[in-house]
């Protein structure tokens, strides 16, 4: 076995608010650690080189590609996946809007989309459709043609902005 896989690294991090410890191969990607070791299969691996966004996670408040970041690099980090966002309820309106607008078909891109959209919405305000499209241009969806996703995000942005103002 080459060194990169045989060398093991001890890590301690927080995943979805819970402390986690692990001994991971030095070359293992964060998304694989989450999926294979922790059983958090919400984030998906698709292109495995940072292009498609299916593996998008929140790491220390930033949207990050789980297929580019090594698990070893997540030592000490705070990681959120779609499972955690769901449990916490912070993306409830967005998830409901995706269902209501049918902004998903096969759903393989959806967990990554949710994290990426939250990254945009966290900036506040109501982004234009063009800005939503631009922001999601690192998240690939082969099923929907994107329009329903843009609709869902636009609706949630407006609702959240309305609530903030009220």
């Amino acid at each position, binding site marked *: *076995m*080459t060194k990169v*896989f*045989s060398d093991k690294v001890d890590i301690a991090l927080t995943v979805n608010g819970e402390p986690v410890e692990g001994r991971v*191969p030095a*070359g*293992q990607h964060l998304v694989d650690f989450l*999926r294979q070791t922790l059983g*958090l*299969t*919400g*984030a*998906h*691996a*698709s*292109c*495995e*080189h940072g*292009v*498609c966004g*299916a593996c998008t996670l929140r790491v220390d408040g930033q949207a990050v590609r789980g297929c580019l970041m090594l698990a070893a690099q997540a030592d000490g980090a705070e990681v959120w*996946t*779609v*499972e955690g966002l*769901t449990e916490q309820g912070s993306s409830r309106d967005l*998830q409901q809007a*995706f*269902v*209501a607008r*049918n902004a*998903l*078909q*096969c*759903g*393989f*891109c*959806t*967990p990554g989309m*949710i994290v990426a959209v939250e990254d945009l919405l966290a900036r506040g305000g109501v982004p234009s*459709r*063009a800005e*939503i*499209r*631009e922001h*999601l*241009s*690192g*998240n*690939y*969806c*082969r*099923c*929907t*043609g*994107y*329009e*329903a*996703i*843009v609709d869902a995000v636009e609706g949630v942005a407006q609702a959240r902005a309305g609530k903030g103002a009220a």
Partner: protein
Amino acid sequence: MSIAFGNPDRPNSYIGKTVPRPNAEKLVQGRGRYVDDITLPRMVHVAFVRAPLAHARIIGIDAEAARAVKGVLRVFTGADLAEVCTPWVGVLAHLKGLKSPPQHALAVDRACWVGEPVVAVVATTRAAAEEAATLVEVDYDPLPAVTDTMTALDADTPVIHPDLGDNLAFRRLHEEGDVDAALANAHKVVSARFRTARHTGVTLEPRSILVDWNPAEGQMTAYHATQAPHMMQTVLATHLGIPESRVRVICGDVGGSYGIKVHVYPDEVATAAISRVMARPVKFVADRLESFTSDIHARDHEIEARIAVAEDGKILAIDVDDWTGIGPYSVYPRTSAIEGNQVVNLCGGPYDFANYRAQTTVVFQNKAPTCQYRAVGHPIAVAITEGLVDMAAAAIGMDPVEIRRRNMYADDAYPVTSPAKMRFEGLSHHASMNKLMEMIDYDALRADQEEARKQGKHRGIGIASFIELTNPSPFMYGIGGARISAQDGCTVRMDPDGSVVALSGVTEQGQGTEAMLSQVVAEGVGVTPDKVRIITGDTQVTPYGGGTWASRGAGIGGEAALQAARALRGSILEVAASMLQADAAKLDIRAGQVVDADSGEERMPLEELGRIVYFRGDTLPKDLPRELVQTRHFITMDYPFAFTNGVQASYLEVDTDTGVVTLLKHWCVEDCGRVINPQLVDEQIRGGIVQGLGGALYEEIHYDEDGQLLNGSMADYLVPMAGEMPDMQIGHVETPTGESELGAKGAGEAGTAGAPAAVMNAINDALRPLGAQVTEMPFTPERILRALGKIDD
């Protein structure tokens, strides 16, 4: 009693409404269960060593170093697997003359395309299997590679499979009327050369399979990302020598398929064979490079075509010479001749004309195999037809909408048989065109185009009418000898709590099959959709069926579900009539209650009926039937296919300095018969359009002349991203099929069928005043600048 679809206020009126998808919530929560999410005890992983050359003899395999990698358990060669797995041949009897050599799960003595699996490495982790696979040394003796379609049959081109005699896989010529005379006497004849690029599906979830052979039970269970579980059951059983009844294929959540996951792939069969040998669960999930080199490709066509028109714009003849290269094997069991065959069947589709000649020539080459991918043949046939019609209109100075109106079959002409010998039961080209014209406000759009031109902006409007083949009968595959079911079935049962479970042979790939079935069953029985649970994708559980392909889910699976639901309603009412001492014909079921049909007065909830039947059957008359389970199957009989029709429009701007095309807006009017769930249909169409737009503007698999794949990554094979795509407006005309009570036809491929032609026509509409024209897809900036004469090296 039939359903009064015309009355939106009828009881239980779920068919025709937007009902949310029952399985969407789990997917947005990340609780989907795709194959790679499944882990079984003692599970191992397989990685494949793939051919690095397009054509080479395999001289020797040295797996010493691979075996030494920690975690590696076994290494299998083609010869090893050939002992447990028989090869297959992708031919169908009704495609006369189609030939293809036997194909093995792993290449035995010769590799025929870059990416063909040659050696399988099994290890306890995927990382170890992949690592070890890189250490396997295969000694190859290179053979000449055939890569060009148009010269594949030339005398000096090497023959890929000497046993077959030549590189011709299939050829079909169809001739109707007197094309040569029509061409000779026409007012105008316009010819063009079209090219559609090699595409692949790029499903976000790669091909995935997890196979578990349990010798103690004598049973194989395959968790498979597939569209056709019953077909795969037969395939695995046949080639691994297991009784069909002992193979169970389970298809859970699938991360996109679009036709990619309906074929038999050697690496997937190899995974099953390895499980058979190792008697433990084996998982294979393709990585992205493997997806590009080994998922089926499609649409690699070169076409010469002509159209002859009269002075008044009437089409006199269409003449098409289509060529396509399919890789070294015809893909099993659907074959790789269907796409070319569809081009012959579909060209000229919307139009009433007399003289038609079309030939398709399907050749072998050393590239990845091609096969059916969303809208099989349609985007090609529509591009040829609609491209020619626009060119003819320009040649005689007629508006592109007007020339179409003069040639489309009249809406009251049906049934008709087309010059390609396709039978149309009922289409609505004129109504659809009228609707489209309203939606796009054609005159205003032309005025905007005019205005833009004054400011030096080159905008274009492109129209594309089309027909779409859906609801296939056994004429598609069955008559050719393939064990692919055109029939589908549904079992519907009522449980003691009054809820309903429906088991269907069609599968969910994200298009909303389960929602569609839930509303059909809800309406058929008389309960609310949330009281219906749908089970699909398990060959041990559901009725035997064909699965989901060729837009058959709603039309065939939906009708089976409706008939089963109506039958269950009948059985429930028979029991209710006995319990209530009433006439069954005067009772109805509404929202889970047995009611008086006339007054609507509630007589008994279904849970009460369930309680009596299941727990106090002693109180019912001895001879009273109480079968609260009903199964019905449906197959289309009157027409080989249910054709649908539609028309799309594209409005775009071409930057003549950079060659970049900006899509401004896209419209589609589609007639898919009865619309069961408007939102799901619209989103199918939108998704389909965007796949078509990808083909028009970005997607192209590149090989060099040695057969090396040049762009095997998502960064290099461009697909549509959110920022580049337009908003799309969808409209409907509904011409239900009379073959079923439901009246639904398919809608999954319409978007992909028409979008490339609409874009091509719009670009050419924009470029026409500049004397430029493009017909080679994708319409990249480079091709557009070449057409404009701005690049000429």
